[in-house]
């Protein structure tokens, strides 16, 4: 997979507020890359800079190695699916999808063929003459995708495209989008604040906060090996505990020592330990180093969310087994499930 787009130290300021503080990012061919982060983190601005709707204050954007940051959007081989779709209400479905092709003055028969092919891909065959404003949210979404894809761009930008849909439809569209991306075989750059959405669809997840990239990696890396407290807390639930690395593969917190798989820390360096709730097992008190009392049990559908109170702190545990409130229990963690992070200075 070759590098298609490269952002080099891109910054952007709006009204004296620095939105992007130097973004470096490589986006590859055929990659499904997601920019993930809370609102105001700069993910949409990054996307708009790639699309050409904003100009960066400084930095470079290379497309196939060519600097494009001054290129207007209509000259980029990039198409966008906008947040609220921005469909053209004065045109029917066909007119919307054919818009880009008409601008390029393609032959009528070619346009008709391309439009009907793309409508088939998004499952809207037979909708050509429909008024776009009469369509459901999901259908409008598909028109927006078809309108962008019919131009055969090298990159498709999607700005929180599922934000306006209900939960069930979101799930369906997530699978659908992934399927479409595989079929057309182009790069998708996807912006969302929904971590589950990001983990489900992406090849690469870029976690952003406060105008900076926090971590880039596969969904599994991001989840299992968060590089800092922000990523750990933003992606899924976790128990984050301050402690020390005594030496390689040995970590200590609250006076307990545990074997782990992390290396490369200085001796006795302060660190933060991330324990995913589903990685903690509840066992008999005598079989574990950490003991505590079950404080609350909440049924979450597939699992129970159990809070266990110890003298030092509360632990959140996800398990399919039920435990009575008030029960005295022990907690065990496998060495490979203990993840140790550097303490961030800003925390």
């Amino acid at each position: 997979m070759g590098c298609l787009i490269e952002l080099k130290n891109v910054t952007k300021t709006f009204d004296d507020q620095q939105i992007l503080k130097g973004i470096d990012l490589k986006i590859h061919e055929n990659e499904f890359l997601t920019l993930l982060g809370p609102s105001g983190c700069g993910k949409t601005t990054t996307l708009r800079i790639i699309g050409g709707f904003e100009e960066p204050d400084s930095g470079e954007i290379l497309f196939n190695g060519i600097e494009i940051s001054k290129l207007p959007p209509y000259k980029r081989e990039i198409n966008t699916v906008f947040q609220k779709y921005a469909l053209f209400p004065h045109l029917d479905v066909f007119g919307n999808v054919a818009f880009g092709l008409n601008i390029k003055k393609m032959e009528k028969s070619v346009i008709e063929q391309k439009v009907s092919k793309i409508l088939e891909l998004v499952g809207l065959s037979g909708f050509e003459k429909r008024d776009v404003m009469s369509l459901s949210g999901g259908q409008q979404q598909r028109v927006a995708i078809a309108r962008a894809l019919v131009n055969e761009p090298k990159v498709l930008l999607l700005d929180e495209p599922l934000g306006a849909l209900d939960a069930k439809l979101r799930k369906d569209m997530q699978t659908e989008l992934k399927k479409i991306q595989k079929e057309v075989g182009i790069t998708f750059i996807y912006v969302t604040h929904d971590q589950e959405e990001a983990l489900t669809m992406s090849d690469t997840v870029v976690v952003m906060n406060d105008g900076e990239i926090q971590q880039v990696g596969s969904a599994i890396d991001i989840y299992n090996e968060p590089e800092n407290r922000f990523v750990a807390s933003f992606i899924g639930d976790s128990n984050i505990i301050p402690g020390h690395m005594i030496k390689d593969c040995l970590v200590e917190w609250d006076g307990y020592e545990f074997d782990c798989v992390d290396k490369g820390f200085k001796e006795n360096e302060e660190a933060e330990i991330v324990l995913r709730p589903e990685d903690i097992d509840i066992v008999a008190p005598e079989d574990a180093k950490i003991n505590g009392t079950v404080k609350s049990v909440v049924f979450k559908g597939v699992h129970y969310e159990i809070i266990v109170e110890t003298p030092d702190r509360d632990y959140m545990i996800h398990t399919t087994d039920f435990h009575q409130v008030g029960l005295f229990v022990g907690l065990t963690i496998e060495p490979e499930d203990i993840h140790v992070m550097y303490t961030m200075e800003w925390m």
Partner: protein
Amino acid sequence: MLKRLNKLPSYLYIALCFAFFYLPIIVTIIFSFNESKSLTHFTGFSLRWYGELIKNQDVMSAVYVSLSIAIIATAISTVLGTLTAIGLSNCRKILREWTLTVNDIPIMNPEIVTAIGLMLLFSSLKMEKGYLTMLLAHICFCTPYVITSVYPKVRELDKNIANAAMDLGATPYQALTKVIIPILKPGIFAGILLAFTMSIDDFVISYFVSGNGVMNISIIVYNMTKRVNPTINALSTLLILVIVIILLIVNLLPLINKKKSKVFNRILAGGFCLIFFFTAFSYFHSSTTKVLKVYNAGEYIDTELITKFEEEYNCSVVYETFDSNESMYTKLLSGEEYDIIIPSDYMIERLIKEDFLQEIDWSLIPNKDNLIPEIMDKSFDPGNKYTVPYFWGNVGILYDTTVVEEADLTGWEILRNPEYNGKIYMYDSERDSMMVALKALGYSMNTTNRNEIYQAYEWLLKQKELVDPIYVGDEVIDNMISGNKAMAVVYSGDASYIITENPNLDYFAPHEGTNMWYDAMVLTKFCEDTDLAHKFMNFMLDEENALLNTDTVGYAGYTTNDFEEMKNTTYQGVSAYEPRTGNEKDEIFGYQDSETKKYFSELWTKVKSH
């Protein structure tokens, strides 16, 4: 049953509403086909007024002016307003809100304020008033309406819509023309309709910012209403027809399928272009080298004479009309420059005093011998240094011979005879009514003696008590033709016309004296081509031309030939046609000082509101 009964009032209400809205229009249409000049009696079907309309060069050029200004102003203000509305949506909130508030001001502002503002602006910029100033003014007052109707549509736009278009390969211009404007179409269309209607029926602003003979339909109609002229009805009917056609087009447009509508749009656009070029052509065509600017009262010349003069002397006459001597004077004060003006006696006196005029070179007017001696050498201009006489007449009482007893015709006192209670029209003008009272009391109508004036006021109050007269303007003409009242105070020229239409009427000028009035052509000091101006005045004194003019206007003629000719033909046996001469007590209005004028209007207001 009950339900249906309940509906009856609502149907009735709707029927009344429709009657209220449409009756005036229906009346106008019916009377445009009237054979006679009456605005109240339908005497037979004829297309006479349509013929007159087409022949009337003034009206036709006003139609061109109105249409071309409306089209150009609508086009420009639509583009300006739409772009502003689109631009506003991308502005900072504060700027946007301020702009919208400021934009509302011209809409809420009384039109007269905008009109005066624009007039002053053009004057201070030393722009010559005419077509261009009227066009600019129309663009100026139409644009806010376009912004107001387009902006809400802009607000509804997805803020990414332009980005979406550009994302799909459209240049910013294409995004505007292929996406933004088509989406805003309903708003833009509403704006176009609003702007067009505002422009085509604007009177107040056009009246103030126009000049040099450029008149639109409203201005010319306003000037026409000063005298009964059914061509207005014909003109109004045609305008109604145009509006109906436009409405039909607007309402049928969505029914025509897309392909056809494209063709249709082209036809429409083509039509507009044609009108535009035609107008532009006729406008520029008329601008030849020598120009004479004439300012006259409305309906006070046979306009064919102007065309004839232009042809004969290869020049162009810019002909403008005013509705009263006072408004003419205001226009002069605002810096408007004319070569020849045709005002009345007292105003001439004022113009001479205030040095607005230059002397006439009588050696350049060989036709001077045609003039009637009786109208020469009058008090306002002894020796005719500044004036070349025009129409003249006096004021008297028009009465219905079948109602009024011959024996009662003693003098002005007949207007207070209780026997004619409720049967009298007085002229709604302070100076004319005070004249009646002053003359009845045996005083001079130009008196400045407060005591005499106060007595006249009391005379009028008493008259109100005794006979309860109705104060009317030019509608007296039509009402007397229909024989609605027994008596009316009228101008002799109007009287002779009314008598030809209703032979039951006769006219008499009381022996206590009355107002003799003389209008005359004067040469302003702004006139540079005095040679052409003298030629014009000489041309008007030509016997043949004078006859044509008197025949059209209907007042007492100013050359011996036309005066005698009319007396022996059209107005044979009509005593009103020949104004009385030789009565010692007859007077000419003099120029009133402002104190007296103020006192007159105070008392007159009191009389009317008593």
